[in-house]
């Protein structure tokens, strides 16, 4: 990468972050709610991107983990416990369940894991709906308090949006570090060629489970933010379609790309809102847009960018070669 390319990237990053902080300041309540939802869904999709994009395991249970996190937060904070405690419980719970759920992945081929996680997703929904003593069933849990962060109350929409954005930033930094650590490289090795990874001395069993468990735990993190965001939860948002939506976000954004989940969540959360002026047609248009995008670029939005950059690099390289060749010819 050239130096100017690097500076360009940093500049774009700074502009985007500044825009995310400044632009929503005069948004109304609903706009802030949608943006906060985008941040929360991005965290969940990042977890799934680690499982799917980096480690190559298809999971249809990410929505269930968001649900587990949301219920942990709702139950604990309405009992007066702080959100940070709920976050700890959600992470440990989702990590442990993800670890156990990952075991079938060791035994069978990849699409069977999708089926096991699909079954788990529906089972979790049934538990949310039927275990009234814990989850209040179909009536849901209301009056979920919003936390005080470092002494600031986040009851109003704007502070809570900054709280979600800050959490997203922290998770992003952790993820950035993780995929550049030896673990991240092991995950990619697992996706590209499990047999070769094994022969290089990577404990594929442990890393498969690890990728799955960490991804699930991030689902839990998203859930603990989701509950105070909506301040009311019932089982319906955590059914199978949330898991499918999250999977769609990862693929549409570009699975295996760091920024894929950001874009995918943007498409899934914001595009339907932008299409609302078409009234009843907006979800239909959204579905058609997703299909057309996938037909045009099965590797998602960032896949298009990647192809374009690769083309430009080859062109630049061949131009350099041509120059070098003509110089050589001139010298001889």
């Amino acid at each position: 990468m050239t130096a100017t390319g690097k500076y360009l990237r940093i500049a774009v990053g700074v502009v985007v972050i500044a825009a995310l902080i400044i632009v929503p300041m005069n948004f109304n309540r609903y706009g802030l709610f949608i943006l906060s939802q985008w941040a929360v869904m991005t965290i969940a999709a990042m977890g799934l991107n680690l499982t799917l994009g980096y480690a190559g395991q298809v999971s249809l249970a990410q929505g269930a983990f968001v649900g587990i996190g949301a219920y942990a937060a709702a139950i604990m904070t309405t009992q007066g416990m702080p959100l940070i405690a709920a976050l700890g419980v959600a992470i440990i719970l989702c990590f442990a369940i993800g670890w156990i759920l990952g075991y079938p992945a060791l035994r069978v081929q990849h699409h069977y894991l999708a089926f096991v996680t699909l079954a788990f997703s529906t089972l979790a929904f049934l538990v949310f709906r039927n275990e009234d003593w814990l989850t209040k069933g179909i009536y849901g849990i209301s009056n979920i308090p919003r936390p005080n962060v470092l002494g600031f109350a986040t009851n109003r929409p704007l502070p809570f949006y900054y709280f979600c954005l800050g959490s997203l930033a922290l998770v992003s930094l952790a993820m950035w570090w993780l995929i550049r650590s030896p673990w991240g490289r092991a995950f990619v090795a697992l996706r590209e060629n499990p047999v070769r990874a094994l022969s290089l001395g990577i404990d594929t069993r442990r890393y498969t489970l690890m990728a799955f468990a960490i991804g699930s735990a991030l689902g839990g993190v998203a859930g603990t933010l989701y509950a105070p965001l909506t301040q009311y939860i019932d089982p319906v948002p955590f059914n199978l379609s949330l898991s499918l939506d999250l999977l769609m976000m990862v693929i549409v954004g570009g699975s295996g790309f760091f920024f894929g989940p950001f874009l995918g969540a943007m498409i899934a959360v914001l595009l339907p809102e932008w299409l609302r002026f078409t009234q009843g047609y907006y979800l239909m248009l959204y579905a058609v847009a997703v299909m057309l995008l996938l037909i045009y670029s099965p590797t998602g939005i960032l896949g298009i960018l990647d192809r374009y950059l690769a083309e430009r690099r080859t062109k630049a390289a061949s131009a350099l070669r041509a120059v070098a060749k003509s110089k050589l010819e001139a010298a001889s």
Partner: protein
Amino acid sequence: MSNLLDLLVAGLATGAIYALVAVGFTLLWQTSQTINFAQGEFVMLPAFLMLAVMHAGAPFWLAIILGILLSLLLLGLGFKLLLVDPMLRHGVLPLAIATMALAIGMKEAVKQFFSAEASPFPSIVPAGDVSILGRVVSLQSLGVLALAIAVVVGLTALLNRTSIGHQMQATAQNPTVARIIGVPVERMILLTFLINAFLVALASLLITPIYLAKFSSGEVLGQAAFIAAIVGGFNQVRGAIAGGLLIGVVDNLSAAYVSTQYRAAVPLILLIVIILFRPQGLLGRPEERTV
């Protein structure tokens, strides 16, 4: 005991419909590695096509014929040419995601252009009861069961007894070799898509009188057929049939004997147990590892 018989007959009837849908599902997987997440919506749509034809004033029999023809055109040919063909070479996952989007699109289209309410749908089997061995059994259950069995037997005969069926099996097992020995592989794949469209249209015709025509009715059905296909064996037509019947019966029995709240959980637990201990399904053959 008498109650058990009723439950079994009703379970087999719904199971037979699940089997039709599950068979189509496995056929698509076998010949073109398509995991169709919109399969449930594929069952939902033909009923609405038939309703639309009837609203235009056509009699029921004409609506059935036109409905089946339209689904062959849209869900068979259209689905293959517009979505599967451009995406197939990019692997299983993007196509599976695209079918999820298709499912959303179909649901929304029906909701927008027909109605969000459930509409009644005429039954092709007359209502009423018959008594068999002193037991009263609903004629509708029996009729559904008989029709579904006839179709399944017909399909199995087509696959196992005719030259076209053998060519389709060859395409499913090894397209390269099939092409070498002169099987028109492309035409066979198209044929499986048309068969799938026919099966879902038929399932739609049979199940809609029981559960009413509603834009969201495909969700439950699609999942049931999906589970049936995996439990029976993802790569075997007879596995899908057995799985469908099994899931139908298990579903009905668990509603009566386990709890209505957790009836949906029993087939899922069955699914997890099967995947852990017999991942190829009850009647399936093990898939060779790709690595």
